[in-house]
Each structure stands twice: as structure tokens, then as C-alpha cells.
């Protein structure tokens, strides 16, 4: 997991632990001092998610099986007004941002626990895509698609049995 914006250590540790538990693997966290200015689009006042996704493998010298870049900034792709994150299906890289996951953005009370749980779900979700998973119809499954922030709260942070089996089969 690459921390591409300033994040609280404890926050990163908790995200990494939860993600590691879900995928039953160790999660390394690395700070990356990426200059985000080149990715800024002044017209949209957002950051280009496609280019960020292509760029993050260059941010680390180590080799990981899966790589997630975690951001604080508002990310877009040309066809959509915003994204929570994105991944390359069946490949290794993904990005996610906490920007639109924060309650404050919607005029609600700041809620660090909720933010943590949303971030965890979002990272696990995007990683699921890197394992080749597509969206799941199971209401509780973390791979259920959520385009609206509170839809994230409706699902759990775990993969359903079906999705879990798909990963197990894919790994063979």
C-alpha cells in the first residue's frame, strides 16, 4: 500500500491490518512523496485517475504482487465526474481516495471510524478487481458496486463466499 498523501500513521496501520486480514496476507505500507501537481486538471479542479493509476508502479523500487495508491485528493476520469478509486481488472495496480469518503463533505459530522471503515472497504474492493473480480450482486459483499458514498455503508468489508472462491480458483 502506497501512501501518496499525508496520512496519519495509525490510520494507515489500521487500513493495512484490515486489508491484510481480509486477504490473509501481509500488507506493507510505504510512504511515497509523489508530486501531484502534474496530475491536476485546473478546469475540473480534480486529479486525473487514469494517469495516477499508470504512474503509481513507478513510485516504488520494491516489487509487490498488488499495489494500491491511497490518496486524499479528488480523483476523476474523463467520462465520470468523480471516482472513489479504480483498478486494472486482473492486473496488479489500484488507486483509491478518501476525499469523497469523508462525512464532512456532505455536511455531516466528522466520523473517523466511519471514514476508516469506508476506506478499508474501498481498498479491499479495488484489490478485488485486481484479482479479476467483477461486481457482485450479493448485498453484503464488499464487491457490490457502490457509486454513492452511503452505499458503501450498506455493504460489509468482506468478500462473500462466491467471490472468495473465485479468487481461490484464479490463484491456481
Amino acid at each position, binding site marked *: 500500500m502506497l501512501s501518496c498523501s499525508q496520512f496519519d500513521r495509525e490510520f494507515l496501520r489500521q487500513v493495512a491490518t484490515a486489508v491484510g486480514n481480509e486477504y*490473509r496476507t501481509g500488507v506493507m505500507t510505504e510512504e511515497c512523496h509523489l508530486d501531484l501537481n502534474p496530475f491536476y486538471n485546473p478546469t475540473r479542479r480534480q486529479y486525473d485517475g*487514469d494517469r495516477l493509476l499508470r504512474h503509481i508502479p513507478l513510485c516504488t523500487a520494491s516489487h509487490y504482487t498488488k499495489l494500491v495508491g491511497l490518496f486524499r485528493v479528488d480523483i*476523476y*476520469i*474523463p*467520462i*465520470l*465526474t*468523480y*471516482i472513489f478509486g*479504480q483498478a486494472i*481488472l486482473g492486473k496488479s495496480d489500484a488507486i483509491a481516495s478518501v476525499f469523497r469518503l469523508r462525512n*464532512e*463533505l*456532505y*455536511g*455531516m459530522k466528522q466520523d473517523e471510524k466511519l471514514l476508516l471503515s469506508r476506506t478499508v472497504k474501498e481498498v479491499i474492493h479495488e484489490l478485488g*478487481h485486481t484479482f479479476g473480480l*467483477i*461486481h457482485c*450482486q*450479493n*448485498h453484503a459483499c464488499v464487491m457490490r*458496486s457502490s*457509486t*454513492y458514498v*452511503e*452505499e458503501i455503508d*450498506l455493504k460489509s468489508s*468482506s468478500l462473500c*463466499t462466491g467471490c*472468495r472462491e473465485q479468487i481461490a480458483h484464479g490463484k491456481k
Partner: protein
Amino acid sequence: MAEKISILIVDDEDSVRDSLLNWFIEDGYEVEAAENAKKALQLLEHRVFNIILVDIKMPGMDGLELQRRIKALNSESIVIIMTAFASVETAVQALKDGAYDYVTKPFDPDDLSHLIRNAGAQISLSKENEALKKRVTTLEDIDDIIGQSEAIRRLLEQIESVAQSNSSVIITGESGTGKELVARAIHANSPRRYFPLVSVHCGALTESLLESELFGHEKGAFTGATFNRKGRFEMADGGTIFLDEIATVSPKMQIELLRVLETKSFHRVGGNKEITSDFRVICATNRDLKTMVHNGTFREDLYYRLNVVNITIPPLRERPDDIPLLVNHFIRKYCTSMSRDLIAIEPTAMKQLEKFEFPGNVRELENMIERAIVIGNGREIRLKDLPMGREAVDSPVESLEEIEKKHIEQILSKYEWNVSRSARALNVDRVTLYNKIRKYGLKQKK
């Protein structure tokens, strides 16, 4: 989803094609892309697509002309016109020519997903009509409703028949009987299944929070509201809204609810635009609403509007024969999710479970099994891994109250006397838990 819905994207911009392609693949659709009208028509010679997204401005043949050709080839296909600049004239023209919708780029992800789900639901609806006689009776999403008792069989029958209708439903049952599971099953087997099921736990929110939760608010409605926020009724558009603990709703909110149910329209807090939403309502309660109507604490008109169909879930103690099935189900569930080998259960342990009254119903049983797997020896669940087992050792004839007292004490100490979390774990409300604490004279040990 029975048959995959197929989508064709026609746009000359690479980035648009790539991201939409990616988006739809992740969403489980079958999708292809073409960079101009000519390529699209070539593809359409060989096959049919359910939904075709067409960019209006392309070199060569433009989107409106392509739409006319598509409609001539196959009038069943749903065409959605995309544009970078909204213009009223072209929109009108596109819709006149039979476009399903006209959307401006870039899309709000939430709108895009709604748009495609709406179109998809229309397609599956016509497919379902075709296959009307080939009716499949297998129910979806009922994996967690376990049992072979008469009561459960009747419950499943009720779910099946009520799922097909659009009526309001009230689910009654004690805490922990699985009211939300039943709501999910109804939704998952209804024609609304492609749309969200949105749950609201009314009991957990104050009146003003509940209002903003249900109806949403506009940017600037109060300090800090820098973004518009959709309410639950709006999120449930096309789908189902599940209102849990409906009996806790204040008199003022009861009036508001009644109005929304009657008109299917409302305003966001601080907004003046009327918003309409097409939702189905399912409510749940562990109280006797009829008595509340009698006492004047619950509006009669609202009660009749909600209570078109009533489904009652029996408490677990009334169907003890289902306990072994449930036990095995939860063992499988938790062993799988903890990536462990399946474990067995001691016959004496099973016997004790069958005898237990389970004031917290299925939820309590589930928690017991989960805990027993965590603390157990990894091979089988022993009597001493269960709360009643530990008591059975020192006093074989303990009253139910004693067991309840000890169980509550254990949970409280597990959650360091956080009453809210303990209440959630026990699946009772906080008031009930406070009453029990007082009744048994429980105190936090320092």
C-alpha cells in the same frame, strides 16, 4: 442475473471508450466498443446489443443518424445518446427519434449506474414476460433463512408470493429473528432486485437526523453542508426501502412518512425542488403496532398504509427442530470465513443448544457458535465452549434468568461496559439492556 445484458459503446474518444468499457466489464455486463458509426453498424450486422450508448458528435456519420439506422435494424435496442454539450434541440430530436435517454458527459457515476440499471430492468422485464411460463420457483438470497419447520416453510412461501407484488409489508418478530434477512429476501426476489435495497434503522436516529437521513439535504441547508446529500428515499428509487424499528418513529415523522408514502414525493431538507422516487416500503418492528394504534402512540392511517401484508417470524424457541440445521449452517459459515476446516459439534453440546430458549433468537445462536469456534480447540465445539455449558458444569439446574444474567455480564465485560455495543451484540435495544442491568443488579468490576 439470468442472462447477461449486452452493451455497445460508440464514441470516437479513446479515453471514453476505455473507461466505459472498464466500468461495464466490472459491473458484469457483456460489452463491446466501436470508434465510429461505420464500425458500429458492422458489429450490428452480426449481433444484437440490448443497450447502445452513442456519442452524438463523431466524425463521419453523427450519433442521431446512427440512432435512426439502429432503430431501423432492431427497434428493441435501447439507445442512449451521449453529448459533451447539452443542447435542448438535439435532446428533443434524439428523444423524438426514440432515444431512451440523453446524457451529458462527464457522468455522475451514481446517475450512470442508475441509468443502466433502469434500462437493464426494462430489458429483463420484457425478457421475463417472454419467459413467463418458464417460471423458476427457486428463491434467491435466502441462504441465511434456515429451517425445515412448518413455520419456516410458510415464511418462505409468504416471501415468494409477496415478492412479486408491490405492496407494503410489515415484518414482525422478536429481536434477533432475522427481520432484515426476510426484507432482503423479498427484495432479492422481486422485480426491483436490480435496484438498491436501502435500510434505515429508525430507532438509532433522533428526529432531525432521521429527517435528513430519509429526505436528504441541499448544499447550504445548514453550516457545513457543502455538498448535496441524497436521502434514503431517493437512494431507493426503483428499489426497496427497509425501515427497521418503525415503532420508534416520532409523531411528527409519522405524519411526514404518511405523506411520502401517499405521494411518493418529498423535498430535501433546505430544498424546494420536489423529488419523486419510486420505492417499495418494507418495515419491521418487534412491538405490537396494533396496540400502539390503540393507545394512540402510532397513527392509525400510517399503520394501515404500511400493513398491507404482515409477515410474522416465529421466535426460535417455537421451532427447536431447526436448531441443528442452524448450528451446522453457522459452523459452515464461520469456518469458511475464518478459513478453517469444518469442525464438528459434540452431541451433548448440540443437545443443550436444542434445549435452550434463546431470548436473543437466531442472532444469539449465531453469536454463540461464532464465539465457540473462536475460543474452541479447532476440532469440535464442546459443551464448555458454549455459555450454557460453562454453567452446566457448576450448577446443572440453573434458571433461564441466571443464564441470561451471566450471558449479559459476559458480553458487557467483553465490550468493556459499552452499553450500545453490548446491546447490539445481544440484539436488544439499549433500554432493554439497561432494564436487565438494573434487574440483575449488574455492576462493572474495576
